[in-house]
């Protein structure tokens, strides 16, 4: 069963490892990677309590629009769980 997720579209100031070009985009969980120290806390000298990290796969058409050269190609990004929202199914293209 495919786990669909949407990356939060938040734009906070400060150190964030979630790429801006993926915020608000929908993808699916390629794999769960387990807990990793949270870089958003480590960056400020805090302990970086381990938090779940997931590899998310996106289609090029989702990121760049259907006019992109290779719309069915995919890109993987490793994103922390607190940046992801579970969704029932992807939105209509």
């Amino acid at each position, binding site marked *: 069963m495919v786990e669909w997720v949407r990356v939060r579209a938040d734009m906070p100031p*400060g*150190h964030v490892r979630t790429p801006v070009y993926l915020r608000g985009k929908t993808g699916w969980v390629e794999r769960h990677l387990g807990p990793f120290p949270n870089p958003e806390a480590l960056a400020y000298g805090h302990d970086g309590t381990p938090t779940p990290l997931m590899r998310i796969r996106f289609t090029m058409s989702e990121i760049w629009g259907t006019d992109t050269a290779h719309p069915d190609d995919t890109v993987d990004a490793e994103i922390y769980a607190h940046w992801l929202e579970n969704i029932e199914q992807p939105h209509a293209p």
Partner: protein
Amino acid sequence: MGGSLAGPIPTDQHDFALWEKRVDALMVICSGKGHFTVDGLRRVLEDMGPEAFETMSYYERWVASINQNLIEAGVYSTAELAARMSEVAARGATYGDAADG
């Protein structure tokens, strides 16, 4: 970079100056000793803003970030750094040159 056009990427290899190698080594030592992590390095680099990326070299940005992280971690104070910088400057501009080339 950062979504802006940056022109062609120079792909030729280049040598690093001794001070640049020392800055790199300093980062390894700082994280090894637990003063701060690469995340802290990146955070300060990002906070420098785009102008720093146009006016400072790669390792100039690194040493500025390492310095800020070390002060935040309490390894030394700004006053101690100031005193030490004056002490080094007093050695004169040619202090670092090798005696026989």
